[in-house]
């Protein structure tokens, strides 16, 4: 299902619609087909206006078996289209999915446009010339469904056909059969008179430029690479596989011809330490993981803070605590990123707001890291990382260059001297005359020697804090969507951007006095944020956690922000956020 979902997304991007996707797959590798736990879903929202979310509900649901129907029916709009592979609704399958009676004959489906399609039979029939074994032939039914969807939404087949060429070039039978099934599905839609409507979605109005479809984890990978490229340096990426961050590893390892060095470490601690070693050696070093791995890295991140070396640490957040819900999304690692280490251990934290935004966020993280000589944490989440959207590809010449300096006159060199950004020199081993020793014990200001001096420790703790606070000099002022003051400000961060923005716009369109402030810079926060917060009567902070940003805003700015919290392993729905906004504007609490 993930595969055909991706194909549909590609085709949709190419016709120029704006789109957002929400893949949803089980934690098991091959969960038993037909069981509720084994249902693999793929939701896509596309429109000719800008879209920010995968849609709260769906207008068309394709259910390949009873289990899929059971799991997803609740999301289908009343009056929506329900396309069923009726061949799969056998008594056994129905029982397996927990249906007492056949729902296709039932009340339950009243109010939907139900289309019963014998997809298996039609597919087998369609592909019979390809000469596959029956099992293989049957497997082509997903492409039949895809063809049907393409017809329904008027998508071109070309990209998928091209993809089939690439994918199954070596197995022409399978390639051919999938094409046959795809066309059969498309044609089925075309020729049967089953469908009352045939949608046509026009290209979205978006800024001009060259667009591509991009997944969040791929954008993160490109952002890291582009930063190294813009500095004329090499990227080093150390990681231990973990859902949903592994795809960054899988992507970066492909690009050895860019000089990218990828190291699959024995665990997350080793990955973090290897990144430190590489950064010490002068590489653009990064590491990526998810919450549990982030927990393991904590001690070594402390070392990176003490050594004051630049590197980027990506946390693709997932459902927690502990192993939690590994394949689901959540925003509950903010505290961990900002406050979760021993001692006073400050570092900058950024959060990406959408798949495409992962690029800019990763890029900016390196800009900060190198300028301030500090590790930087980038928070994305499962939703942003696995989801995809059209992305206007920046022109490389429009990206800023990242200045790196490793040269210091040996006569005056001091490893913990400071420049105007309070950064210490990035002096590399191997450089004649600059030999020095660094480590995790407290350092003497300027000389970098081990120092147990009480006043020096106090000074250095405050210096590290001031250095990170100074990052606020570099980052842009916080912007708003909506008026600069009013009844309600909705403050969000990270992957909820699209939903919250849609919800706020929906309420604004009805005349509600509400604005939207979406944070990328979690630490330090933009200098003007306090002023913004104080310009609104009420503040609402919707988060996929129990109120982490909310507590930080309250503590820092002493504003009575209230939380709107959902911890279900899935994104907000626009409607629920809009309803909450309405409620507050109407005086509720």
């Amino acid at each position, binding site marked *: 299902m993930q595969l055909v979902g991706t194909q549909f997304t590609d085709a949709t991007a190419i016709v120029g619609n704006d789109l957002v996707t929400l893949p949803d797959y089980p934690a098991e590798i091959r969960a038993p087909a037909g069981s509720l736990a084994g249902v693999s879903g793929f939701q896509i929202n596309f429109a000719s206006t800008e879209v920010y979310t995968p849609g709260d509900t769906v207008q068309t649901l394709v259910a390949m078996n009873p289990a899929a129907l059971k799991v997803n029916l609740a999301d289908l709009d009343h009056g929506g289209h329900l396309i069923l592979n009726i061949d799969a609704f056998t008594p056994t399958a129905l029982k397996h999915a927990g249906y007492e009676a056949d729902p296709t004959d039932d009340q339950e489906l009243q109010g939907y446009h139900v289309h019963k399609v014998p997809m298996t039979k039609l597919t087998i029939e369609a592909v019979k010339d390809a000469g596959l074994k029956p099992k293989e032939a049957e497997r082509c039914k997903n492409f039949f469904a895809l063809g049907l969807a393409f017809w329904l939404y008027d998508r071109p087949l070309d990209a998928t056909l091209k993809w089939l060429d690439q994918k199954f070039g070596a197995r022409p039978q399978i390639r051919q059969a999938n094409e046959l099934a795809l066309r059969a599905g498309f044609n089925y839609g075309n020729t049967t008179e089953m469908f009352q409507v045939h949608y046509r979605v026009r290209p979205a109005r978006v800024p001009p430029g060259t667009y591509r479809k991009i997944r969040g984890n791929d954008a993160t990978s490109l952002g890291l690479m582009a930063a190294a490229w813009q500095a004329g340096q090499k990227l080093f990426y150390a990681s231990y596989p973990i859902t949903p961050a592994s795809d960054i590893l899988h992507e970066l390892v492909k690009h050895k011809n860019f000089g990218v060095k990828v190291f699959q*470490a024995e665990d997350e601690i080793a990955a973090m330490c*290897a990144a430190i*070693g590489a950064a010490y050696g002068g590489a653009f070093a990064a590491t990526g993981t998810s919450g549990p791995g982030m927990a393991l890295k904590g*001690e070594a991140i402390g070392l990176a803070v003490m050594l004051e070396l630049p590197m980027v640490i990506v946390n693709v957040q997932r459902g927690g605590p502990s192993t939690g819900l590994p394949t689901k999304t959540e925003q509950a690692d903010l505290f961990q990123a900002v406050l979760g280490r021993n001692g006073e251990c400050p570092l900058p934290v950024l959060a990406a707001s959408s798949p495409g935004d992962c690029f800019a966020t990763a890029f900016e993280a390196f800009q900060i890291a190198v300028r301030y000589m500090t590790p930087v944490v980038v928070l994305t989440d499962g939703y942003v990382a696995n989801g995809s959207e059209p992305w206007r590809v920046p022109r*490389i010449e429009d990206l800023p260059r990242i200045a790196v300096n490793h040269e210091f006159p040996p006569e005056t060199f001091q490893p913990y001297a400071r420049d105007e950004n309070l950064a210490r020199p990035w002096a590399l081993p*191997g450089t004649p005359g600059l030999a020095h020793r660094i480590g995790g014990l407290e350092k003497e200001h300027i000389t970098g020697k081990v120092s147990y001096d009480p006043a020096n420790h106090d000074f250095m703790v405050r210096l590290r804090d001031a250095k990170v606070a100074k990052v606020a000099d570099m980052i842009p002022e916080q912007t708003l969507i909506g008026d600069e003051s009013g009844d309600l400000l909705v403050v969000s961060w990270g992957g909820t951007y699209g939903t919250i923005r849609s919800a706020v716009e929906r309420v604004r369109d009805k005349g509600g006095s509400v604005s939207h402030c979406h944070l990328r810079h979690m630490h330090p926060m933009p200098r003007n944020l306090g002023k913004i917060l104080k310009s609104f009567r009420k503040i609402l902070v919707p988060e996929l956690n129990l109120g982490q940003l909310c507590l930080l805003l309250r503590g820092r700015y002493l504003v009575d922000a209230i939380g709107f919290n959902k911890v279900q392993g899935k994104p907000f729905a626009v409607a629920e956020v809009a309803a909450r906004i309405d409620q507050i504007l109407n005086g509720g609490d």
Partner: protein
Amino acid sequence: MAATTSAPTVSLQPKDYGSSQEIRWCPGCGNYSILTQLKKVCSNLGKDPDKLVFVSGIGCSSRLPYYMGTYGVHSIHGRAPALATGLRLARPDLEIWVITGDGDGLSIGGNHLLHAFRRNLNIKIIMFNNRIYGLTKGQVSPTSEMNKKTISTPYGSIGAMINPCSVAIGCEATFVARTVDMIPAHLQKTLERAAAHRGVAFVEVYQNCNIFNDGAFKYSTDREIREDHVVELEHGKALIFGKDQTKGLRIGRNYCPEVVTLGENGMSIYDLLIHDERASSPALAFLLSRLRHPDYPEPIGVFRAVKSPIYNDLIEEQIRRLTQERGAPDMQKLMYGPETWEVN
């Protein structure tokens, strides 16, 4: 990397490899001797101090980088091999030495050692084995003998001791050696061998902690008795030891090593085990690593030294190959990805 170097014009003395930092080990600690020999080895081999990096974990032993006038990182407990791995991969040009202790390397850090060994990274790893936790004031270590009384095992320790060389050999290390703090010539020679090895080189150094575990290796350092308790490994040579060189080791029944006396029961040098550090199977090296005082003389010297593909070489090799195959990298093209469309 931006770093450029010029070869040192004059040859450097051992003291030139030291730093100005005051040394803070206890007077009489075995670490002094190791530091001295290390500097001597650097000088003998004409190392460029600016190309050397010492990376350590935490422990008395791990303070060593501060005392070298080279580059150095005093990292966190147990993680030096991991940090060195990143540095190694980023910087093929440097010479990297990891300094660790028995607790740092084999208690908290065992797993990183294991993986450094199996990857055969081109780094040197020197483990100062004093069979105790020095820095934290005398707790039992994984290399402490069973039944040892320490501040954390007042009634005797109950976990078997681990054998650093056996572990290294079991984990695919390509160079494994053992030496002793108080036999300077052997220490020096062994460090020089390690320095010459391309690939991961592991050296266990018996080190006396005169505060918390004084005399742990007396049998191997005491001039009076050590020749009867230590056998020196030399490639291609028979395993002979003893004050008057009359004892030898052979493989007895059931593949069990046996101590024999030359001349007795018709034993001659031809019956003895011949050391082969280059054997492709590590089985012989492993067998030798199991010889333990007081049942057997303990081998010192190089157990194993074999050539094998080196992780950091292979990664460079892959980069070279891919770059050749694909031509110059084009970042813009990569960003465009497989499919783009224009919006005007």
